[in-house]
């Protein structure tokens, strides 16, 4: 597939932002690796669940005898700056794919894609490790990208905003619709896990489809040199 310049640039900015958000997000989580449901929760309450890791704050009972170095300050600065860049890039990307026809042509399922026959064929091809066509995305690719773009990213932004005390003062439904601020934090964590899962599978698939060619396509915009549609 040939990627337009805007797709390539927004792809790599998003990659950079996602890695920054991931690293800083991990640092923020280890300051309190406990999760709650509802509006409130702290170390004096039983958690919904806790991560079996040490914490970077001594006030958290983790069962470990040591406290990790506290990296929350710069992690928070970086997290929010990367979030801004990711959101602005995402807005540009959405506008582009809607108006260039890319969304309709390359992401939304094609006519006939959604019949049981087509779906089971796509799944069977995937299970048999059949390499996807390089001309256009197959159904599973389309559904995955659509879910990441229109479900996971909006959810992670929404649950992030729901943790902002100032933002929810202006738009309270952001947090009440999720069941509370600690629920928002818990959902934010799980959506981030799904995004991480996508990243891992995405990179694995790129390797499987031919790392050099796929990277060249996303960096220079030139399609691969080997035979297409293998």
């Amino acid at each position, binding site marked *: 597939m040939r990627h337009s310049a805007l797709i390539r640039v927004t792809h790599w900015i998003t990659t950079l932002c996602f890695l920054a958000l991931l690293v800083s997000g991990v640092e923020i989580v280890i300051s309190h690796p*406990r999760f709650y449901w509802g509006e409130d929760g702290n170390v004096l309450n039983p958690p919904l669940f806790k991560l079996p890791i040490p914490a970077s704050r001594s006030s958290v009972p983790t069962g470990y005898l040591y406290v990790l170095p506290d990296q929350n300050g710069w992690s928070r600065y970086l997290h929010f700056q990367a979030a801004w860049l990711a959101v602005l890039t995402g807005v540009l990307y959405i506008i582009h794919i809607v108006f260039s026809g890319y969304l309709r042509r390359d992401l939304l399922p094609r006519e006939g894609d959604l019949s049981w026959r087509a779906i089971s064929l796509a799944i069977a091809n995937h299970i048999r490790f059949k390499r996807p066509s390089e001309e256009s995305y197959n159904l599973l690719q389309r559904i995955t990208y659509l879910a990441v773009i229109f479900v996971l990213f909006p959810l992670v932004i929404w649950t992030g905003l729901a*943790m902002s005390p100032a933002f929810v003062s202006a738009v309270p439904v952001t947090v009440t619709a999720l069941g509370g601020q600690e629920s928002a934090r818990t959902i934010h964590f799980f959506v981030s896990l799904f995004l991480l899962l996508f990243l891992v599978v995405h990179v694995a698939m790129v390797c499987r489809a031919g790392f050099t060619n796929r990277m060249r396509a996303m960096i220079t915009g030139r399609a691969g040199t080997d035979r297409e549609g293998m």
Partner: protein
Amino acid sequence: MSDLSRRKLITAGLAGAAGASGLAVAAGLAKRYGLIPPDHGGIYGAGETLTYAAHRLLTRHSLAREFPRSQISKNPFPNGEPPQDEDFKRLEKGRFADWRLTVDGMVARPASFSLAELKSYASRSQITHLACEEGWSFIAEWTGVPLSQVLDAVGILPQARYVVYFSIQRDWWDSVDMADALHPQTLLTYGMNGAELPVGHGGPLRLRVPRQLGYKNVKYITRLTVTDDLKRFGRGLGSASPEGGYAWYAGI
């Protein structure tokens, strides 16, 4: 160079120039309308400025959520240790009868208040959420005097832009802009859940800024200074938080 790439170059140049001048105009406007936080320098300055500016445009007058009494947390976590020094212990022994809050800076009538004097003002109680930057939180009923009332009593000068507040713990000081200082929910808090504010939660006097994270809600307040310029305080970043690596504005 082909015509096409020359045209592209000119277009890109024009777009770049327009973008740069647009940014300059935006920066000028942002400064004029107080949309730039004191910790705007450094590599994270752009993100901080975007957050603070967006919040000042969107949330200047919005009210923090208030909860029904049934949602008050049974176990509010008092983070950190109360001050261990002799001065504080002496004041605590005297049930804080000698606690003073001094108000100075850009005010018409600098003053000093005892807790009894603060309690003689009309009080406000509100059940709000307090979230720590670590991720935990609790809900409590807070009672106190709105900061705006105390500022009214001393008469702030028109050029005032920030209120700096100091804890008896020397390392803790912070500041808020006038939007938060005059906000009806910003309280000099002396009561919690129907009783005196416990020492663990900042008693006898804590500034509650419910639209910002816990660390902005400094405990053991002894002094307020009204100013038009934060550069004169500490390292000029607005509070002790950025000096320790944390954002000045904690509305996130």
